[in-house]
């Protein structure tokens, strides 16, 4: 640790976030590696260290003997201030070396509100923020993560985007980069070769032109480059890397526990859900292997908590067997096992009861919409009867509070649907009184609503987001019709949802806006203590761009979308069909019942998904 750093650490909050040195942090001998990677997470240490994907790729990269991958997180405001005042550039946690001297800077981007932090971190590293200002003497800047399914808004700042699951493509990319370094290729040459690696998108090799109305006329790739770039997936999760030996932070983080991924993908096909489409097809892991890995991870870390992380855990066929296997190990050792994202329809009470023995606090369901019609429209296949059964078993099993999550502003939503949320909440309350242990008063229902954000690569990618005033009108309508004492209503502030809607479906012209907002101090936009909508609105004005064009405009059927430089493997025709079905409130069966021909089977051996 340098003396400069030693001087500032006593002046900042939670300095353990900035020191590295945790158990299982990978420290290599600099002289034994030929390629150094700064793996950046554009949010705080506590958030970044809670990310399983980051831990996986850290392990994958450090598994290469010639490569040393270090972690970098966004310093909180007090630390940034001290670093800038003392001219300490952003450094890798493992070595303490400035990352501006590394070969590669890689960002994991899962949330649009982190964009400003990417710029800020590059700047703190002393690396020119815009790719046009960088050359071969600077680190290559790459980004991956779910946001990269629309890479365009970040294309002024990032040299290469990695699409889909990173386990394999990261290794291929590193081999190319190492060769380029050894053979002294120019940056241009390197980018051209990387553009040929499946799953990598190089924005500098694509030219975009626009129509007079602001929509895209054409996206033209340079010679030898093909569009769209198809995402990569790991075909066999049983043989792919899982970090049973992983860093145990010395200070508290958000998800401080063993995270076990039971499968990737989701069979459900909720029409609003980007993850549901983007991670197709579903691929499950073998339960015996999961039990082995879960036990190994607990032993190695000393964690006393384990969670199964997947999109819809209850769709995992051998869930009972898996839980039995894990509980055999966990229960006698007081290790708690939690199962988020259980569905209301095949909710297994026996399972929940065994898992949460003694801890009956809250139960969470996400019906997403208040009426059956709207739930059918979004293909969220949960019925009121399902919910009733689940609540009944939950309440009679001793649970006394239920959290319900909804979205407001879903396509085709009417006031009747909004009021349906109030109805449903009241019914849950009544079921609680009927089946609950404490006949009167004991039951609590918490209703939360978020403003719907139409996402690229979903059935609703054409849709307009309702404007903020309309969202607030619906919030008020709901609030006024849901005044019961035992119902708490929380609504998500629409400002960030609006910006999310802008950036998730934005084009590359938005780079200027991000730049402008960052220049004016934007950072940590996911945090209310830093977020300022006005700063962003000013940036749009300064750039002569209208945010409503991106958030609140319904797209034409034939419009070319900026995110179509990428492909999730799910076809546009399928998404368009799903949108039509939504308008008719017709549900699409899940992948297990029947294949609907989305196109993701191209990733499966023999062209058939094993849902």
């Amino acid at each position, binding site marked *: *640790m340098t003396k400069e750093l*030693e001087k500032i*650490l*006593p002046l900042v909050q939670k300095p*353990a976030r*900035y*020191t590295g*040195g945790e*158990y299982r942090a990978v*420290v290599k001998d600099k002289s034994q590696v030929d390629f150094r990677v700064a793996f950046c997470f554009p949010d705080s240490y506590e958030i970044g260290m809670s990310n399983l994907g980051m831990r996986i790729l850290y392990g994958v990269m450090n598994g290469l003997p010639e490569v040393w991958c270090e972690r970098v997180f966004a310093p909180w405001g007090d630390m940034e201030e001290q670093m800038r005042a003392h001219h300490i550039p952003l450094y890798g946690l493992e070595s303490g070396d400035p990352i501006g001297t590394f070969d590669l800077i890689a960002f994991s981007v899962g949330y649009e509100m982190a964009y400003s932090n990417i710029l800020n971190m590059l700047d703190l590293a002393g690396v020119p923020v815009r790719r046009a200002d960088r050359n071969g003497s600077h680190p290559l800047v790459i980004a991956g993560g779910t946001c990269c399914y629309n890479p365009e808004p970040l294309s002024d700042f990032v040299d290469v985007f990695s699409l889909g699951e990173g386990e394999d493509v990261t290794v291929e990319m590193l081999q190319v980069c190492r060769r380029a370094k050894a053979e002294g290729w120019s940056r241009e040459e390197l980018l051209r070769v990387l553009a040929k690696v499946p799953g990598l998108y190089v924005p500098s090799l694509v030219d975009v032109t626009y129509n007079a109305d602001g929509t895209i006329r054409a996206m033209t790739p340079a010679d030898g480059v093909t569009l769209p770039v198809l995402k990569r997936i790991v075909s066999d999760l049983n043989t792919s890397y899982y970090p049973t030996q992983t860093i145990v932070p010395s200070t508290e983080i958000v998800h401080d526990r063993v995270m076990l991924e039971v499968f990737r993908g989701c069979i459900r096909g909720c029409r609003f859900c980007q993850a549901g489409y983007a991670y197709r097809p579903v691929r499950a892991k073998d339960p015996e292997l999961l039990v082995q890995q879960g036990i190994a991870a607990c032993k190695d870390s000393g964690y006393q908590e384990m969670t199964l992380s997947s999109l819809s855990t209850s769709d995992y066929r051998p869930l009972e067997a898996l839980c039995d296997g894990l509980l055999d190990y966990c229960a006698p050792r007081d290790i708690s096992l939690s199962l988020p994202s259980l569905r209301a329809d095949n909710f297994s009470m026996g399972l929940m009861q065994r898992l949460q023995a003694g801890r009956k606090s809250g139960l969470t369901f996400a019906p997403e919409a208040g009426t059956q019609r709207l739930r059918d429209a979004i293909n969220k296949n949960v019925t009121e009867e399902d919910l009733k059964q689940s609540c009944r078993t939950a309440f009679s099993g001793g649970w006394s509070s239920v959290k319900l999550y909804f979205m407001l502003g879903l396509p085709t939503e009417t006031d009747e649907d909004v009021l349906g949320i109030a109805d449903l909440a009241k019914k849950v309350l009544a079921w609680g009184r009927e089946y609950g242990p404490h006949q009167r008063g004991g039951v609590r229902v918490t209703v939360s609503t978020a403003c719907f954000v139409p996402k690229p690569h979903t059935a609703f990618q054409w849709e307009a987001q309702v404007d903020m005033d309309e969202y607030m009108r619906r919030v008020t309508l709901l609030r006024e019709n849901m005044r019961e004492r035992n119902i708490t209503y929380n609504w998500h502030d629409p400002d960030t949802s609006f910006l999310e809607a802008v950036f998730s479906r934005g084009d590359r012209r938005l780079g200027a806006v991000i730049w402008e907002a960052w220049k004016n101090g934007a950072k940590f936009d996911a945090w209310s203590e830093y977020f300022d909508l006005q700063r962003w609105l000013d940036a749009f004005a300064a750039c002569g761009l209208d945010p409503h064009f991106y958030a609140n405009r319904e797209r034409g059927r034939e419009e070319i979308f900026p995110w179509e430089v990428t492909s999730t493997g799910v076809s546009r025709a399928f998404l368009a069909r799903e949108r039509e079905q939504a308008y008719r409130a017709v549900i699409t069966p899940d992948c297990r019942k029947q294949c609907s021909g989305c196109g993701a089977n191209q990733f499966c051996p023999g062209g058939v998904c094993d849902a």
Partner: protein
Amino acid sequence: MPKDRLLFAKEGRACYISHLDLMRTFQRAFLRADIPIKHTEGFHPHPFISIALPLSLGFSSACEILEFGLLAGTPRREVPARLNAVLPEGVRVLECYEGTRPMRELQAIRFQIQVDFAGDVPGLCQAWGELLGRESWIVEKPSKKAKSGSVNVDIPTLVKEYSFTDLTENGVTLLATLSAQNPGLNPSVMVKALTDACPQFPPEFVRYRRLEIVDGDGNIFR
């Protein structure tokens, strides 16, 4: 009442692990090392671990004491190596032994206080030495507990011994034995009082290290 103790050092990057986080780190380290330890009784039993005299964030130490109860099956002599294999960088167990003396006999702590000051170092030593050598020197120290928001501390009464060594043109090391408890004196409080009283000698940076813990007679405490 558990009677096992660890003597451990906390250095380098580990200096920034807080007291609470360090307890959690040890809990997990015992599990990683597969060393079963005693738990508290009651409704939510948790491993019994207590670290004496919390070390301020940023300080290093060669003499921290952790109390716990070893369950049958692990010989004490194996504990240091097994824990050291699974502890984060900078936390190092030096010894595991049976604790016999009550913790209240731990009376004082020897500190090494490295003062960076590129100025009149002899002047600083003289001015600071004069203050520490007084019969009584009462300073006000902010306190969350006191109603008035501060308490008075008579510093020389809590400084058992002090000396200046390694004087160079860039600073000096102050060795000081300070009262450990009831009441204890944090060396950073002392240095702040000295700095405030001698504004002509502002240190650029001060590093603190616990060297040894002693009893009322000045003998090493274990």
